[in-house]
């Protein structure tokens, strides 16, 4: 089953997207953020919170900021401090917190010797590498499986209850479990600590929560003889820190898309685009699949009118990922089944759009999102909408199959909602696994025409963005119909211009490793 598409047109899209991503990168290269610097600290081994529950990475960065030396970067300060005090990064952080150490006093005006610092990073890196090795051994990339991987969310707010829900889901056939975050977390400029039991519409992302769920899923996966992937959100103001914690606790996928944060969370675009670059390098290094958020556009804007914005954004996200050294097999580009069911031939239009994504990104583990916006309180009709969505998923060989819940319009999923959704998906997959052996897309027919129209519109949009630049595009609200100013939004105060002496050997090491260890993937 395939669409006849013009490869020159596709190349044209890619060229525009490369230019768009490079422009952004070029523009933002001279900046860093508090989140990036906190992540550097975490990758040096700093962890835990002080007695006011402030995480040590925040303590240190706040200290550097207050001392007016943040512009040289956390690595600069830490390398100096380590060389001077001979303390571990953690001990340094604790001393700073206790007020017994002022990092600015350890510094000189010249670049420090990074050996000690890189040794500290090497220890953390080894922990990440161990997790990656385990994953490489156990996980089959969703893209390499004959049928889509079934992805469900848990969102009780209580990590222990989440585990019960997740285990039930695994018993009923789930392959991937995402722990949705509590509603306010992406606006917090720190990562909360410890096991938590009190979230709203989701559960706080903490390292301990990651660990607890990881252990539970490993155990369940062993019992069922399949590796269960764990997902969280490297997004919001702590995007790169969460990516680091995910790498350490062996999360397998991370929702990671600045555009989502900008548009839907009103996070400052400069802040989050800088954070994203670091996050993606880290995820690429740690072999973590990212999931992008194009699906969300269609929950605000009309899914028929704005289908092309999804495609354009996927191309851009692809190039942001490539810039960060990420191979296609880790690019979980997102899209969704969100056309109004009242639209005539909605099913066929969905097939066209899904198959278009499939063919444009043949090597990416595409993440396909279920109907949400047009789900109403009628759980029976919702079940039918989900069935049609499941069909499109299987017909067009999507990889990451986020299951629709019949109670989408009512509450975050109950245990039974998930079980019923898994049954729905399993039945549909079984019932039409060989669809492609039985049917062909009619050349020049409705599906092919629609796909071509969407591609044309996406091409045109990419050309416009190539001209005006992505930041201007975001200001104009071309995605999801929501515009955001480049100096507005949350977190701008955490962005700073790099000093001439700024150094980030942690990032550099990972970039080099990506280039050297996987030259074929670059």
């Amino acid at each position, binding site marked *: 089953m395939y669409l006849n598409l013009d490869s020159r047109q596709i190349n044209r899209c890619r060229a525009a997207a490369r230019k768009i991503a490079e422009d952004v990168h070029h523009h933002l290269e001279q900046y860093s953020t508090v989140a990036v610097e906190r992540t550097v600290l975490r990758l040096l081994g700093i962890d835990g919170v002080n007695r006011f529950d402030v995480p040590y990475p925040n303590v240190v960065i706040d200290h550097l900021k207050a001392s007016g030396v943040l512009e040289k970067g956390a690595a600069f300060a830490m390398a100096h401090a380590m060389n001077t005090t001979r303390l571990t990064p953690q001990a340094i952080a604790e001393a700073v917190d206790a007020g017994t150490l002022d990092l600015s006093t350890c510094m000189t005006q010249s670049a420090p010797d990074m050996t000690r610092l890189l040794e500290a990073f090497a220890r953390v890196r080894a922990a990440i590498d161990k997790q990656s090795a385990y994953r490489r051994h156990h996980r089959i990339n969703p893209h390499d499986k004959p049928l889509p991987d079934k992805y469900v969310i848990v969102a009780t707010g209580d990590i222990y209850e989440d585990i019960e829900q997740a285990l039930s*889901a*695994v018993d009923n056939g789930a392959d991937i479990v995402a722990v949705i975050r509590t509603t306010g977390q992406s606006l917090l400029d720190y990562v909360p600590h410890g096991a938590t039991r009190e979230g*709203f519409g989701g559960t706080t992302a903490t390292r301990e929560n990651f660990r607890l769920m990881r252990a539970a899923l490993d155990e369940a996966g062993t019992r069922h003889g399949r590796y269960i992937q764990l997902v969280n959100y490297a997004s919001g103001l702590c995007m790169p820190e969460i990516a680091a914690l995910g790498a350490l606790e062996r999360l397998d996928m991370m929702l990671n898309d600045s555009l989502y944060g900008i548009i839907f969370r009103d996070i400052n675009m400069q802040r989050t685009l800088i954070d994203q670059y670091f996050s993606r390098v880290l995820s690429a290094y740690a072999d973590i699949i990212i999931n992008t958020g194009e699906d969300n556009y269609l929950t*605000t804007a009309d899914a028929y009118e704005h289908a092309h914005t999804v495609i354009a954004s996927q191309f851009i996200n692809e190039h942001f990922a490539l810039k960060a050294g990420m191979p296609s097999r880790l690019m979980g580009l997102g899209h969704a089944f969100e056309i109004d069911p009242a639209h005539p031939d909605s099913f066929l239009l969905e097939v066209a759009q899904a198959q278009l994504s499939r063919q444009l990104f043949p090597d990416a583990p595409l993440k396909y999102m279920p109907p949400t916006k047009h789900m109403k309180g009628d759980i029976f009709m919702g079940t039918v909408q989900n069935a049609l969505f499941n069909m499109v998923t299987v017909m067009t060989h999507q990889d990451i199959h986020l299951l629709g819940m019949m109670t989408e319009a009512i509450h975050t999923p109950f245990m039974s909602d998930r*079980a019923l959704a898994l049954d729905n998906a399993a039945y549909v997959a079984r019932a039409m696994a060989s669809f492609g052996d039985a049917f062909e897309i009619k050349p020049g027919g409705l599906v092919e025409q629609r796909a071509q129209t969407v591609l044309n519109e996406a091409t045109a949009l990419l050309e416009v963005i190539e001209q005006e630049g992505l930041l201007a595009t975001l200001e104009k609200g071309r995605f999801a119909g929501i515009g955001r100013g480049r100096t507005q939004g949350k977190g701008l105060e955490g962005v700073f211009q790099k000093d001439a002496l700024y150094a980030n050997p942690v990032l550099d090491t990972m970039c080099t490793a990506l280039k050297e260890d996987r030259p074929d993937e670059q």
Partner: protein
Amino acid sequence: MSNKKQVRPYGDTLHDGKVQVSFSLPVPCDAKGEAAAKAIAHAMHLVDVVVAEQRPLGKGYSFYIVYGTLTQTIDLEALEVIDHGETAMNKTDIETYIRDTFVEPLVFIGASTGTDAHTVGIDAIMNMKGIAGHYGLERYAGIKAINLGSQVDNEVLLDKALEVGADVILISQTVTQKDMHIRNLTAFVELLEAEGLRDRFLVIIGGPRISHALAKELGFDAGFGPGKFAFDVASFAVKALRERGVKTHKMTTDK
């Protein structure tokens, strides 16, 4: 006649009381689980209970689909229905009403408050485009609509409302898990009261789980849920503002 008010659920014979129920139990899926499901159904006043489906949900949990006959009846006449009163005017009539009643444009300010990032609902009410073919308030002659978007703190909303001289404050709440919306809405009313501003504005709330009854209970002037559009809100608001004498001829001459 009085008998006619007694109502029971209906399957295929009047007053047969037929009801479908589903739920999970934190017990394994076995004979005991089935008995427990029946007992739950009985506790809901169902008789002739049929456990149509029972399935394990994994270790220690099970799911049941049950049909049964409800033995209770309710009295239709005794029900108190809390709604917005008269039927809503359409856009044209509202615009005329405003022209005829008020001496200045009416100012509506709205937001999705707290950490709630859902704007589709408030946009549907406030923005030009509206939804489902019903234009939003922004398009109404005589109304100035200011939409602050999402994730707006209660304090920020109130400050802005004072700043623009708003007549009506519109608040949208979508996330309801663990009664998030109740906490957030209650906090706004308390804020207004603490500032002595409760009567300064008409305050209207909305969202998928908001009803007029709930709004009243929480101390708001009105509440609108799914299937309500700008004209419903505007109809209610213009009448309430007139009643309060806000920006009416009479008030201005009086002053």
